[in-house]
């Protein structure tokens, strides 16, 4: 009987292995360095004063008093922006993804797929500028009271993240095994029943992954909001038609125009809070993903 021996790795294998390890190590180090630097710089500024300034916390939380000089309006604005943009983007993105995967004819699928890829590659500043131009047009011709505001920003952000949601939904559905796709129809299910009871629940995990990416994108984007409604001091937005503050915009203009070190430290604190919000949303989405079987 022949003995089976494991051959030694060739020099090429070792080189490739080392290169792969180095790349992985480099990326991990970059992430650890960035987050570590942020924590190092921003952690000391994290206190209630940074968020609420000299306003009593409860009065600020219950919106009885405006917060001036603290990050509370920017945090609220960011959360409102994420919530609103997702409210617009999720139904449209998921429905379009389902359409592409399940109902579109091959030619339509190819054409629309290309369109959505182009849409995904649009620079956010272009989307922001288009949103601004549309707002001016609407203001001049239809709604005199309409100015750049939370609603316009949310719509532009939704436009920005919709392609991610579409593609992740489409790919999640298309990658289901053919036997699973035929199981429910084989038992007499209609197309809609198959989608509702089998395909969407089975693809839910991957669809949620796409949504997590989209949430992250809409939380951090600055270019869109700086042209469509974010302002330095607006307080808590009274309605969707108000200007608003947002953490990414606060970080941007503070870093660009700070006058002393303490002001810059506030930007680090804001960046850390933005990181916590994104991390919190990520953990929440991950928890939902784990719950979905």
């Amino acid at each position, binding site marked *: 009987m022949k003995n089976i021996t494991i051959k030694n790795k060739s020099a090429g294998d070792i080189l490739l292995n080392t290169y792969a390890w180095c790349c992985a190590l480099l990326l991990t180090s970059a992430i650890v360095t960035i987050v570590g630097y942020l924590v190092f710089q921003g952690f000391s500024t994290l206190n209630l004063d940074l968020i609420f300034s000299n306003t009593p916390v409860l009065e600020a939380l219950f919106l009885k008093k405006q917060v001036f000089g603290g990050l509370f309006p920017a945090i609220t604005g960011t959360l409102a922006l994420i919530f609103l943009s997702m409210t617009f983007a999720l139904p449209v993105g998921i429905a379009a993804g389902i359409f592409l995967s399940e109902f579109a004819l091959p030619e339509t699928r190819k054409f629309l797929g290309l369109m959505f890829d182009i849409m995904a590659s649009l620079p956010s500043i272009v989307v922001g500028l288009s949103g601004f131009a549309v707002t001016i047009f609407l203001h001049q011709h239809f709604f005199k009271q309409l100015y750049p505001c939370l609603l316009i920003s949310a719509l532009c952000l939704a436009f920005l993240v919709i392609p991610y949601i579409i593609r992740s939904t489409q790919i999640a559905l298309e990658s289901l095994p053919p036997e699973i796709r*035929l199981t429910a129809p084989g038992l007499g299910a209609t197309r809609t029943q198959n989608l509702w009871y089998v395909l969407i629940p089975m693809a839910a995990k991957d669809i949620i992954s796409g949504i997590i990416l989209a949430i992250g994108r809409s939380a951090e984007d600055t270019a869109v909001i700086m042209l469509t409604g974010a302002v330095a001091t607006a307080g808590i937005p009274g309605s969707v038609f108000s200007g608003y503050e947002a953490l990414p915009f606060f970080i941007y203009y503070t870093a660009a125009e700070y006058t002393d070190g303490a002001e810059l430290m506030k930007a680090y604190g804001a960046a850390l809070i933005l990181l916590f919000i994104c991390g919190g949303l990520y953990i929440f989405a991950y928890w939902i993903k784990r719950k979905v079987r």
Partner: protein
Amino acid sequence: MIKANTKIKVRGLSFFYGTSQVLNSINLDIPAGTITAVSGPSGQGKSSLLTAFNRLWENIDGARATGRIWINFGKGLEEITKKEYGVHHLRRKVGMVFQMPNPLPMSILKNMQFPLKLAGISEKNAVLEKIETALKQAHLWEEVKDRLSSDARMLSGGQLQRLCIARSLVLQPEVLLMDEPTASLDPVSVEKIENLLLDLKTGCTIVMVSHYMDQIRRVADINLVLSDGKLSLTTAAGQ
């Protein structure tokens, strides 16, 4: 001439994937209460033939069938290839079991309830009774009766395949299509499923794809051999 106990009658059935033809004008009569094995080399259209009997090919991109098929559901032969024939109703009468067990991502009980829900059967006692009967028919009841709420995917391969058979049986189909139902199973599970098929054929006409001549000899009454898209041989199994 059509025999009195013909369950399935096929005339001029051709099957295509895009421009490639896999079945070429098949004519066939399958008697009621028999197990018919379909064998032959890979890629000759055995599975496609099965999907013609419940029109499942309509759910497969690029697939197309021509020709006519009749099935006798107790009121004489009905042409199921007519466009107006209700496909969802047809698939409740013609069950199908695939090569790989395909449980839905839910509990054993919900897997069994699923076809009944689709058929609009919701009366609790009737549902539970049908589920118990089907699981007993599939020789699975004793193994799962105490854990019906467990995730179906936790069952072993053989148990999963019997669950899929039970899930098809819960609607009391008159025809059961099985596409290599034992291909992925161990010998013990294969034996259990073969015994199950022999039990089922009294109330159900079974058409199964199989590559194993031993298995065909053990369980089938008729063996159809498909080659180059045509029925090249029809023999009584064992010959």
